[in-house]
């Protein structure tokens, strides 16, 4: 399916509805329903890119965001962010605004082209959107608490149906949050992209251009911090040497 090229019409409405549905499903999958990992930034961005007609764009943005948040745990109290909606909305918006994915992250042109700052800019937008969306996630969890406490009446009257309805309502709320935030981020991305392209100062462009190169190191640092530095270092060292040799001499 290709992204709508301007104007209204049924096709455009259907496309935006499809994006909202994808956002809802990703938000549900992240924490509430199935948790299949399709809600992780990489597959979510690939799906958003595919919906916009450029799966490769989703691959580039999703890969970087996935590496950046590789240490995030979608577990109960740790779940305070909204990477899924950010990845879907911002990627789709960027593609609609005319962003094209670089040929390959390892290609020299990715780092030397005049538009090399755009990938870093998209990464910053997704990170900021995830943090802002996290405020809504926290509000949603407070609403869950209120609804859960209102379900205490079922302990007195034995009405199971009420508890099921409350649980279902929580699912709907998460889906709604995902759909709305995805649409908002897509619109924000659409609006911000030309503004940034026209007015981004040169020093900021330079910093944004090199930001993606920081992400793999950030991911490795986060994972080592999670696993602990000492216990597995021989395994890490051996794998690092293998990876280095394979990429340097064999690929």
């Amino acid at each position, binding site marked *: 399916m290709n992204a709508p090229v301007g104007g209204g019409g049924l096709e455009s409405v259907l496309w935006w509805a499809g994006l909202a549905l994808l956002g809802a499903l990703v938000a549900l999958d992240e924490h509430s329903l199935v948790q299949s990992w399709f809600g992780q930034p990489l597959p979510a961005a690939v799906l958003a890119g595919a919906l916009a007609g450029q799966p490769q764009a989703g691959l580039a943005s999703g*890969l970087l965001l996935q590496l950046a948040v590789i*240490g995030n745990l979608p577990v109960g109290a740790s779940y305070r962010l909204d*990477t899924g909606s950010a990845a879907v909305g911002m990627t789709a918006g960027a593609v609609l605004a005319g962003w094209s994915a670089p040929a390959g992250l390892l290609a020299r042109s990715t780092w030397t082209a005049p538009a090399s700052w755009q990938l870093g800019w998209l990464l910053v937008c997704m990170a900021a959107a995830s943090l802002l969306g996290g405020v809504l996630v926290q509000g949603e969890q407070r609403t869950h608490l209120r609804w859960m406490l209102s379900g205490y009446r079922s302990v007195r009257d034995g009405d199971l149906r009420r508890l099921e309805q409350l649980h279902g309502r929580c699912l709907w709320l998460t889906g709604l949050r995902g759909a709305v935030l995805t649409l908002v981020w897509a619109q924000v991305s659409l609006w911000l992209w030309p503004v940034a392209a026209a007015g981004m100062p040169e020093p900021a462009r330079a910093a944004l251009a090199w*930001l993606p190169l920081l*992400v793999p190191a950030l991911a490795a640092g986060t994972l080592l911090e*999670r696993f602990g530095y000492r216990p597995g270092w021989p395994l890490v060292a051996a794998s690092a040497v293998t*990876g280095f040799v394979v990429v340097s001499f064999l690929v």
Partner: protein
Amino acid sequence: MTVGKPTSPDEPALEATVRRGVFWRLLSLQASWNDQRMQNLGLLACLAPWLNRQELSSQQVRSCCRRYFGYFNTNPYLAGFVVGGLLRLEHARAAGRPVSERDVSGFRDTLARVCGALGDQILWLGLRPGVMLLACGLAALGRWQLVLALVALVTLAQLWLRWRSLAMGFRLGADVVDVLSRPLWRQAVIWSRRVGLSLTGLLIGVYFASGFELGETVGTGRFLGLTLLGFALPALVRQKTSAEAQLLLSLPFVWLLVVATA
């Protein structure tokens, strides 16, 4: 295969419609997660198909609601063991067997803790970073179809685990604890960690090789500065700051680095 089916005439069977109903709800166990009692509403929603099927008095339903309205938290992928086991104990209670409320609560709390700890170690800290790093590797090669295929494969595997664990939990009842105390689980924790560490090492190796490959384009000083910043930041903030915040925090440092190495 006898899982979920009675192995002797005395053993109860979990009806197919109830099993399906419980399974679908098990997939949304965390949907109503809240700070105070975590997955309690989700657990009650899971038990509802079975409770609706039983001819329980109003008093029995109220008592059941009270029992499960308290704190409950476990790993969603292994929750089938807990829910299946609880259904078996409730079944025994409804049939008039000597199973006290305390037995049920004790079983629920203990097993939820065990499954929570195992699931967090194996799935969240081991398998998930490992699978996603593998997906990132496929993404770096430009194979988006393979990325989606990998995630689909993992999804099928976890759905199978959930379906089977529910049946196993019901078949074994309180004895499901024996299954979870098998050395296999400990091995799974160790191996998922090793896979995660190996893939982290591979990421580091590929990163350095790519840095050398990009060579003059990036500049040695700039590359080493970025590497140092990337490795140091998570160690400095020690999981107190989210990854997104770390990324935004690093932006001024990257700018300084770019200016310094220009």
